[in-house]
């Protein structure tokens, strides 16, 4: 199909080039003092739950939440939770939950082809880190990795995301600049701003159509 390529590019080049307009200035700024509030408000408006905790206390807070909630995928007793064993927060969770047999930690450490059935049908929740948040829109930034694969934030009915309070940026533009995204993006970079939703039937909002029905955001401060 290289003929098609040449033909298409030739036709485009044959056109009289339009003048290159200058980019008018545009920016949105959100003062640092307002960011955390704005971030939480926006996420809650999108049907997510936002709680604040500390790096020492969050595993027990999460355990209480999960117990109160019960299992959702029909496992006999307790909840199955995907976690990233190779990361710092994954280890924190494993250490803190050694005395909680009703909360089963499941590693996503094999290819999806091997784990597909568990992933698609048998996990109640997944815990992932984030690369921060965006205050303007109430958004989480995720760069899934080998330790925290892409489907963790998508397949289970509950997604639990950890955000460092000091990593909440004003806008997407700011996050891209500070984190220097254009120097190299991962296989998949994600912005998540609430649980999965649809309004396709009579513009009635319904949650969890394909992805998580619930999103719990734990802000770590500090």
């Amino acid at each position, binding site marked *: *199909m*290289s003929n*098609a390529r040449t033909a*298409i*590019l030739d*036709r*485009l080049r*044959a*056109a009289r080039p*339009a*003048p*290159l*307009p200058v*980019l*008018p200035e*545009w920016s*949105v700024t959100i003062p640092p003092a307002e960011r955390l509030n704005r971030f939480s408000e*926006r996420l809650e408006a*999108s049907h997510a739950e936002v709680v604040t905790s500390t790096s020492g206390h969050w595993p027990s807070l999460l355990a209480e939440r999960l117990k109160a909630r019960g299992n959702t995928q029909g496992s006999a007793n307790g909840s199955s939770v995907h976690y990233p064993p190779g990361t710092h927060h994954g280890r924190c969770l494993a250490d803190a939950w050694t005395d909680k047999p009703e909360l089963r930690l499941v590693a996503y450490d*094999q290819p*999806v082809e091997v784990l597909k*059935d568990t992933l*698609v049908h048998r996990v109640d929740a997944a815990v992932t880190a984030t690369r921060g948040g965006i205050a*303007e*829109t109430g*958004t989480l930034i995720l760069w899934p*990795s*080998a330790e925290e*694969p*892409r*489907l963790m934030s*998508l397949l289970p009915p509950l997604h639990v995301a950890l955000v460092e309070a000091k990593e909440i940026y004003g806008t*997407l*533009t700011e996050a*891209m600049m500070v984190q220097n*995204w*254009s120097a*190299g*993006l991962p*296989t*998949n*970079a*994600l*912005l998540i*701003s*609430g649980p*999965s*939703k*649809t*309004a*396709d*039937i*009579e*513009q009635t909002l*319904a*949650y*969890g*159509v*394909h*992805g998580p029905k619930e999103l719990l955001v734990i802000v770590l401060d500090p």
Partner: protein
Amino acid sequence: MGSNLATSAATAPDFAARASIALADDGLRRKFRRAMDGLMTKRAAQFPDPEAWTSLRARGAAIRRRSLARLPQLLEQLETRCRANGIQVHWAETSADADRIIQGILTDHGVRTLIKGKSMVSEEIHLNDFLAEHSISAVESDLGEFVIQLAHETPSHIIMPCIHKSKEDVATLFRDHIPNQAYTDDVDALTATARRVLREQFAGADAGLSGVNFAIAETGTLCLVENEGNGRLSTTLPPLHVAVMGLEKVVERLEDVPPLLSLLTRSATGQAITTYVNFISSPRKEGEQDGPREVHLVLLDNGRTRIFGDPQLQETLACIRCGACMNHCPVYTRVGGHAYDAVYPGPIGKILTPQIDGLATAGDLPHASSLCGACGEVCPVAIPIPNLLVRLRGEAAHQNSASTVMGAGARHSSVEDWVWRGWRLMHQVPLFYRVATRVLTRIGNAMPASLPMLNAWTSVRTKPRFARRPLNELVRSRGFDHE
């Protein structure tokens, strides 16, 4: 009743006929009115500050114009960057080429079932029908598209494809097509059913297909915007991902995305951002546990390079497919999407379809407008849609061998030509003017409104009443101070 009308509307010969049928369908009109009113209110709430709207829109419009001004270079850069990232790039001159390329990729990988995220370009190339002929079943996974597929219909809106369906319609479709599904019109229950059924489809699919909202040349990245998560699933769970995009969707830099994204989601559904924004830059890398092993990008021309050749009509390609122009169009909101009998309905469809399919088949669409200007006013990238509609009306009416518009002159009428020639002569030669005005003022009112040709105007308007004496006669007899 409603569905009978919808079916007959789709087969009526031209827009006017289809529109009349749709206008008589009260149920259809209620559904569109409600949905469009909701979308207009939500969009307005997202742009409360006119200054912020103006500067954001100016930025977005300039980004799109800059991308178009450098289109060939950016496409080459996109291709180079994608290849370096491991994404395979294909070029398709026509719909048929794109279909064959996609089918070739799928067949090479032994694909039997394809799960699809929402893609208007895949509708444009009629991919599902083509694949079915080659024994590949394509399953739509966007809830609205899934409903439409069960009903064997086409989308009636580019963002909300099943706007013309009530929840009772969906309940019936689900009961009739999904095994063991009892009738329920509870939206949460219907959504849960779709989740269950489509999860199985996702788990079993051999490949996923998606559209592209923005392709970033600088980094070789595909950006997909959605709320449901089906786009993410289609591009993550199956071992193969094929993305298809119109070649105009490329932008220069990553930093072009935030303003365009903001304009897109706020204009489309009145959301500050969608639930998911998905940046895909490569297939699964060594050591990663999920993601497709191969990613393919198909760049579609299908008339776009021809549109690009005309400096004014090129603006059509700045579109980011937000759908705001249709939500605000007094014609679309009353007749709905199917009356256009085109993949892209509403104002953007009225300028795009005639340029892709040609004025010979779609030359009536630029006339499906009152030229009220609402579309141009709300367009987040400031496409002067009314001007382009007028231009296309002219292209259809005038025989001009130098025109690059497909089907130029297709609606040319010699009678119309003669009428205008007469009109010009009358205003050039004083004698003719005097004779003509004399005659018209004497017999004009006596002409019946039903006179052939005159009735094209008078069937929907009151026939004008002629003054008894022409203005210049009056002036001459009464005199004016300064004369």
